[in-house]
């Protein structure tokens, strides 16, 4: 194949052209095929290379020549009252196009077309030139796509509405495509039932989450340095296990509120090795329920207790959740926890914890404000 050389200018032009007109046109395939053919002809003539612009120009001109031949030939055929062209039409067309160039016998008037100079020249050309077939196989083009036609009345086995419509015409579209039908909302809304259902689903989710974290706790509970608070709690619980009537009476005005209850495991067996801070027990659940960046501070604080001796209850959201979870745990393990349900003891604990938290907030206001 001929090498295509191009100067800097033409290359830049190509890039610009391709960037400007990057979209493929309908005639691109024909043009590129003709470019290859023209390049082959140039090579046969004796050229070793050609400029891109020159090659494109020559290909364009050859296509125009081809089209003009066809136009001329069909014109002559139509002139003679035919629709199909024959060899004489082509000969006349060749003579018309070759007038400017000149061919032998052009000046002869009234001679038979059979002996036309142009045809003789072509015969000479074929005899002298060696055959150069096209480099690659060319498929039949342009490719005709099968159009999806709208089925006729006959095809749809429908009868047209009016007598004036023949059955071979395309059928009308289905009425549901253009008729507007009203939509009824069949589901009745019951807000009470919806709320109940929502609450039930939430409880279900919480129960599942609690079960998961308990499983995690059972699998690997890390023992930490037991806090003095917890020890005190367990001792109190052991003491008052004998009788609830010996417990400290409630002060007037104070309410008997069931708040944070120790997990059954803590109050059940006071095994020091198994002492788990509430934090540790619920750390996985808390982590799982961590919603957004607002809890980022809490997460940081969560891992601190391993270094500090006391239990840190610095998060509010966690506390609420704990309360709910513990309630559920109560329901699950009813018999065990009921005996250890000592509200006054917890209230004392709660008071102690609240004081501790207050102290923390006043001492370290900066830490809490981080978010």
């Amino acid at each position, binding site marked *: 194949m001929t090498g295509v050389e191009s100067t800097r200018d*033409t290359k830049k032009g190509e890039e610009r052209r391709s960037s400007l007109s990057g979209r493929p046109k309908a005639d691109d395939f024909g043009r590129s095929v003709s470019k290859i*053919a023209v390049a082959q002809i140039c090579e046969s003539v004796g050229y070793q*290379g050609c400029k891109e612009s020159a090659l494109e*120009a*020559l290909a364009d001109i050859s296509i125009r020549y081809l089209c003009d031949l066809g*136009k001329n030939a069909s014109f002559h055929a139509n002139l003679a009252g035919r629709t199909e*062209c024959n060899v004489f039409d082509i000969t006349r067309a060749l003579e018309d196009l070759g007038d400017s160039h000149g061919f032998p016998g052009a000046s002869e008037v009234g001679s038979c077309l059979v002996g036309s100079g142009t045809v003789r020249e072509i015969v000479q050309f074929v005899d002298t030139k060696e055959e150069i077939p*096209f480099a690659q196989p060319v498929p039949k*083009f342009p490719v005709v796509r099968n159009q999806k036609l709208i089925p006729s009345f006959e095809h749809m086995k429908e009868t047209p509405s009016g007598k004036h419509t023949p059955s071979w015409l395309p059928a009308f579209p289905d009425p549901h495509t253009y008729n507007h039908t009203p939509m009824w909302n069949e589901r009745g809304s019951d807000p009470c039932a919806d709320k109940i259902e929502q609450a039930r689903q939430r409880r279900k989710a919480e129960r599942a989450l609690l079960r998961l974290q308990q499983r995690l706790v059972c699998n690997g509970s890390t023992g930490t340095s037991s806090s003095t608070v917890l020890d005190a709690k367990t001792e109190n619980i052991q003491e008052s296990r004998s009788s609830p009537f010996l417990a400290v009476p409630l002060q007037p005005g104070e309410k008997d509120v069931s708040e944070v209850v120790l997990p059954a495991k803590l109050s059940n067996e006071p095994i020091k090795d198994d002492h788990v801070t509430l934090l540790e027990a619920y750390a996985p659940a808390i982590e799982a329920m961590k919603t957004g960046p607002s809890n980022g501070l809490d997460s940081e604080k969560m891992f601190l207790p391993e270094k500090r001796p006391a239990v840190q209850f610095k998060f509010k959201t966690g506390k609420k959740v704990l309360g709910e979870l513990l309630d559920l745990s109560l329901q699950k393990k009813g018999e065990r926890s009921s005996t250890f349900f000592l509200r006054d003891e917890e209230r004392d604990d709660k008071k102690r914890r609240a004081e501790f938290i207050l102290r923390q907030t006043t001492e370290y206001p900066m830490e809490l404000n981080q978010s």
Partner: protein
Amino acid sequence: MNHNRQSNDGKHDDDSALSDFLASLMDYTPTIPDELVEHYLAKSGFQCPDVRLIRLVAVATQKFVAEVANDALQHCKARQAAVVKDKREKQQKDKRLILTMDDLSKSLREVGIPVTCSDVLKKNGHAFLFFVFND
């Protein structure tokens, strides 16, 4: 009558020559593929089921393009012969024959297709062709 007989014989010879030629065209494969020729002829309204005529059109186009290229080659060689006498370097470099717009426009003008490619447009990298075909 003799004249007529002669002309008739002449006509017969021409007829036979033409029909022989058309038959021989089937053996000869033109460089321009048949599918391309058919596409552009169909575009311009040429209707013919005969493959030989398609081949004839293809060969005619090939002849035209070959003539134009030949003329351009002559121009190129003439230019090189004029320059080469002075320096040897140029001679080695210009041994390669390359088709350029200049040579092409010169040869096309002889055929009757005036092609202009202005220098200003060349700098921008675009080659605009303005030419008219004689119909």
